[in-house]
């Protein structure tokens, strides 16, 4: 039998099985993934480039882009900082309840965005735990910009932490110990020893975190008042335009986010080649 060829992944399935399965995969991927992606750009440019440009230069569209960037610019650095601290704390030391802590960090992945929004309303809404206190300081969170930012932060909490923890776990602490024993401070050790070792994983986490931050819809829509030009993020503005039967404008804005997600996918596979992540079950929720 010619089955024991050197390349271990070379399949020994009969040719017709191969053709069938490849065909099935290509058909499914085309129908499920490529078609929706293509439709966005088709619908965006169908009414001509002028309509497209007009949709993007609309004032409410501009302010939606600005709010989306603001929410992303706050949540990504904060959650990156958190991810670094959490990864350091959970991989460099052993303490009781560590695996419970790691599980809790992952929880926002498991919580439906709409339920996340509901939780924030229960905390920061007018009748919520902190609502009246914040109100007395003149700070409105829910149905206002802080709520949008908070919701974005909530859904993106685990992204950086969960990429760093397995990588730092695997790398161990020997290099850090060497640096410390040579007299380096904790901060120097982190910047000069740890950071270079985890840079690709960190970038990977930041990439996924940003993509999610810019695209979050469910959680943000619950806590936002959906006021155009004020508390609408890009996805919310798309929703509003679509419901106004202004599909060309909705698809024009969608094409920006779709382009970003294509870039995300390209950057993702580029980074994956550098981290050799594949064997790690990163898509796991808990």
């Amino acid at each position, binding site marked *: 039998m010619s089955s024991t060829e050197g390349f271990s*992944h070379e399949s020994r399935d009969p040719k017709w099985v191969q053709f069938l399965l490849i065909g099935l*995969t290509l058909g499914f*991927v085309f129908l499920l993934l490529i078609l929706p992606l293509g439709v966005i750009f088709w619908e965006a440019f169908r009414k001509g480039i002028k309509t497209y440009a007009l949709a993007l230069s609309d004032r409410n569209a501009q302010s939606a882009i600005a709010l989306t960037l603001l929410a992303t610019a706050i949540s990504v650095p904060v959650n990156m900082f958190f991810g670094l601290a959490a990864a350091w704390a959970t991989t460099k030391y052993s303490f009781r309840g560590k695996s419970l802590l790691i599980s809790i960090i992952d929880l926002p992945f498991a919580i439906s965005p709409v339920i996340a929004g509901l939780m924030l309303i229960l905390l920061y809404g007018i009748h919520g735990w902190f609502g009246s206190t914040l109100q007395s300081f003149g700070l409105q969170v829910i149905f206002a910009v802080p709520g949008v930012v908070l919701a974005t932060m909530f859904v993106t909490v685990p992204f950086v932490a969960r990429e760093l923890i397995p990588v730092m776990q695997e790398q161990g*602490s020997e290099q850090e110990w060497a640096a*410390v024993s040579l007299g380096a401070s904790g901060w120097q050790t982190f910047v000069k020893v740890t950071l270079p070792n985890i840079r690709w994983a960190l970038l990977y986490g930041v990439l996924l975190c940003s993509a999610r931050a810019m695209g979050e819809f469910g959680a943000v829509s619950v806590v936002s008042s959906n006021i155009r030009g004020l508390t609408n993020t890009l996805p919310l503005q798309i929703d509003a335009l679509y419901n106004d039967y202004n599909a060309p404008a909705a698809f024009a804005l969608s094409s920006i986010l779709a382009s970003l997600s294509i870039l995300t996918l390209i950057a*993702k596979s580029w980074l994956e080649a550098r981290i050799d992540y594949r064997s790690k079950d990163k898509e796991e929720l808990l």
Partner: protein
Amino acid sequence: MSVTGTMQARRLPGFGLTLGFTLFYVTLMIALPIAALLLKASAVSTTELIETLKSPRVQASLRLTFGASVLAALINTFFGFVAAWTLVRYRFIGRRMIDSLIDLPFAMPTAVSGIALMAIYAPTGLIGQHLIPWGIKTAISPLGVLIALVFIGFPFAVRTIQPAIEELDIEAEQASASLGASRLQTFTRVTLPSLLPAALTGFTLALARALGEYGSVIFIAGNLPMRTEIASLLIVSRLDENDVVGACAIAVVMLTATFGLLLGIQAIQWFIQRKTGRN
């Protein structure tokens, strides 16, 4: 642990700072919101909670959400298996691109996916218009909900099964073949059983994701009460009606279901680790 005994006694700098900040942030951002929901739900009397859940509209939405999610997860497990097998075992033009593209539902904002699916499956849409004459309604129908949930869950199935196929023991397959087993026998008796845990995990992850999905579903679903209204949407409608208690009741049911599924995954992982002695 690579740290020797004497070093274990000491600690790398930064323990108090990093753990302190981590605990503070986790408490503020994750624990507190969850506690708020659980406390709100527990403050409501059980009878009121059950009354809310027994209303026909809630029942219908829970049935739709769970039914469509399970069906979507099954479809995803099947096609996820086929796609993962194809991507790992076969070489064909465009393989790398397809591989990267699998994560699209992950990377694309759900609202964008939602209107894209609508443009395809609406009665006037690319595919929808050709199905209407056949009496098949792909949008504003439970079928639309199913399509959106298949879309959103697909990467979870592929990305869980793919590494398992990569790590398959080729020698076991070869041994089986050299002992005279046919390709099909080898597949069903040797290959498939060792992939079962991964397939089960993939199914569960796709299911958990589908249960909580909102953005990609609401456009194509059409949101008709009693017919195409998913649980997430009903939570939003209850909030719009200022019925916070009603929203919390549904949320607690959904949250319990998701957490239960994820605990199930932990059990599967634990079982695999014990069986293979790896971690």
